[in-house]
């Protein structure tokens, strides 16, 4: 049974380059003398990268330095472009977990960023709100890393629960794709609120739900029709035709400067039902519907008083 000794190495041994070669290398080229070497390029690139990225991010990928870099642009949109009128911000608890539930609209997730800014700038405690991003945004190349670095988190129950248990403020759009990609003729008609997942999370964690109505975002990219034939091969749930897209090419991505309002309603407490309430589908549906009608009511009231899309 015993076989002769045979050594099978796990992997070919790879040693660092011999010293001799390294030293010659160093002699030939003083550090920084050769401006086009790969090494100096890497150094320059790294310096540029860390000028606007932190070396360490939080566990969900939030990068404070990156956010600081892009913030002025979003603040411009908030204050000048859309002149956001925030009200009821005091309904957001000063401390502890809470779930902000809002209507979703506007083709691209600008409304999430604006809700985030509203809480950040107008709430006395300057709370940060972690927005839950739809899969289609959270997995889209280029957009995905930017969303994660600016604090958004991919929307799934595990992530939401983890954030709430840490006592964070979480923002969610239960309408999902059906809301953000709805056509212009359906504007301000809330779509179905998913399957009530947000209520289950709130029940399990006992976090209150703060209803939030965003008015104005429906008009930034009025989707006249959908090109689903183009979306399918690109892996997108919708590609809209708007007055400016695709007619004006990249200019079509510039949102129209409508007047926005963001209103936070009275918080709906969830701790009275106990965590077992999450397993009661009737209760979940009832609460979900209650939140939906509350937001719809807030939107309708705001719309009734709105005189102009552009000036409010």
């Amino acid at each position, binding site marked *: 049974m015993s076989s002769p000794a*045979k050594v099978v*190495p796990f992997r070919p041994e790879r040693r660092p380059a011999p010293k001799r070669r390294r030293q010659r290398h160093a002699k030939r080229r003083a550090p920084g003398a050769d401006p086009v070497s790969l090494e100096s390029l890497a150094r320059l690139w790294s310096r540029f990268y860390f000028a606007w990225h932190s070396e360490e*991010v939080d566990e969900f990928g939030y990068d404070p330095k990156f956010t600081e870099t892009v913030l002025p642009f979003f603040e411009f949109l908030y204050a000048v472009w859309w002149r956001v009128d925030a009200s009821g911000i005091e309904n957001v608890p000063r401390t502890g977990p809470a779930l902000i539930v809002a209507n979703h609209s506007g083709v691209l997730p600008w409304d999430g960023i604006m809700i985030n800014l509203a809480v950040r700038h107008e709430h006395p405690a300057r709370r940060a709100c972690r927005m839950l991003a739809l899969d289609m945004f959270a997995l889209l190349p280029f957009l995905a890393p930017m969303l994660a670095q600016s604090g958004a988190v991919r929307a799934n129950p595990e992530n939401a629960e983890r954030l709430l248990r840490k006592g964070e403020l979480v923002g969610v759009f239960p309408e999902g794709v059906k809301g953000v990609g709805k056509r212009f003729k359906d504007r301000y008609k809330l779509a179905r609120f998913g399957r009530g997942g947000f209520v289950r999370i709130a029940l399990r964690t006992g976090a209150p739900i703060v209803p939030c109505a965003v008015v104005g975002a429906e008009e930034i990219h009025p989707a006249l029709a959908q090109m689903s034939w183009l979306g399918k091969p690109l892996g997108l749930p919708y590609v809209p035709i708007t007055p400016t897209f695709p007619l004006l090419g990249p200019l079509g991505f510039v949102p129209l400067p409508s007047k926005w309002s963001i209103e936070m309603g009275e918080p709906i407490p969830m701790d009275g039902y106990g965590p077992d309430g999450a397993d009661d589908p009737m209760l979940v549906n009832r609460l979900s519907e209650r939140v939906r009608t509350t937001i719809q009511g807030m939107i309708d009231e705001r719309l009734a008083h709105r005189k102009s899309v552009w000036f409010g």
Partner: protein
Amino acid sequence: MRPGRIAVTGIGSFLGSRLLRRLAEKHGADRIVAVDVAAPPRGLAVRHREIDLAKPGSDQRLLESFRDEDVGAIFHAAFFTSPRRDTGYAHELESIGTLNLFAAAAAAGVGHVVLRSFTALYGASGQNPAFLTEDRPLQPDPSLRWARDKLEAEQHAASFTRRYPDMKVTVLRFAPLFGPKVQNFYTAIFDRRVVPVVMGYDPLLQLLHPDDALAAAEAALEKAPRGPINVVPKTPMPLLTAVHLAGRIPAPVPHALAYMIGDLLWATGLGAAPGAFAHYARFGFVADGERAQRELGFAPRNSSRDAVVAYMAYRKPRVAASRAEARA
């Protein structure tokens, strides 16, 4: 102290060799048995059983060894951390070898087996939650034989756990190791000046410092918990941050081409990993370390960033020193 000797397989792997040394220091060389085709390093007077796990009949020889040496616990680390081109041997060693090992361990009545596993087995996918817990099903890309063999090893472990409730089986799913003296495909990729990345993607990555990996392995041998446990660093970091921190140049490749180019490079012998590994550069596979904290009492000391910094200080002392100077 636990009765019986501790056997370590895969002493040619980084983790196996370091653990062997550590255990020999802690318990005395005579209490440790190295089970491997390769001899333990000279100067380390541990017992040695020369057995090739991949060979038929190795289960019988393992059983004899475990009985002769009175083995009470096994750390099974005979796995390839990097993908290999001779997938046939890798399959025999990792999947069949694990089967042989568990069969022998069960027959010899070994009380505790620790299986070295990988968080990469969860699979990198856009559907993953930000933190993968141990009860998440393992779904690596089926075309990735590197992961499939290890998945089979875990399945063998699970089946023996069911059949032999007296045998405690701990599965340690380690995040990719990264640090001084580690050699795996991550270090191979980071040793090049230009690092290929997938354009438009920047997933969070967990890189585990070897010191933390060793501490967790030791804790697992000591506490003997049952079931899978993730061993992960303190915090993850974005892939591009790691690339820039290491002073490398990222070369973005569109994901439509990444898999093909990866396979092409792998086939020609230039690449460090097959194309399907591009998944791991697109999506995260960040695991949750809470269970390790609870059951092992293990709290990682290093973040992923610490691991990269330590590795660079080891590989490029000059560059690392100038960087540290610039920061100060």
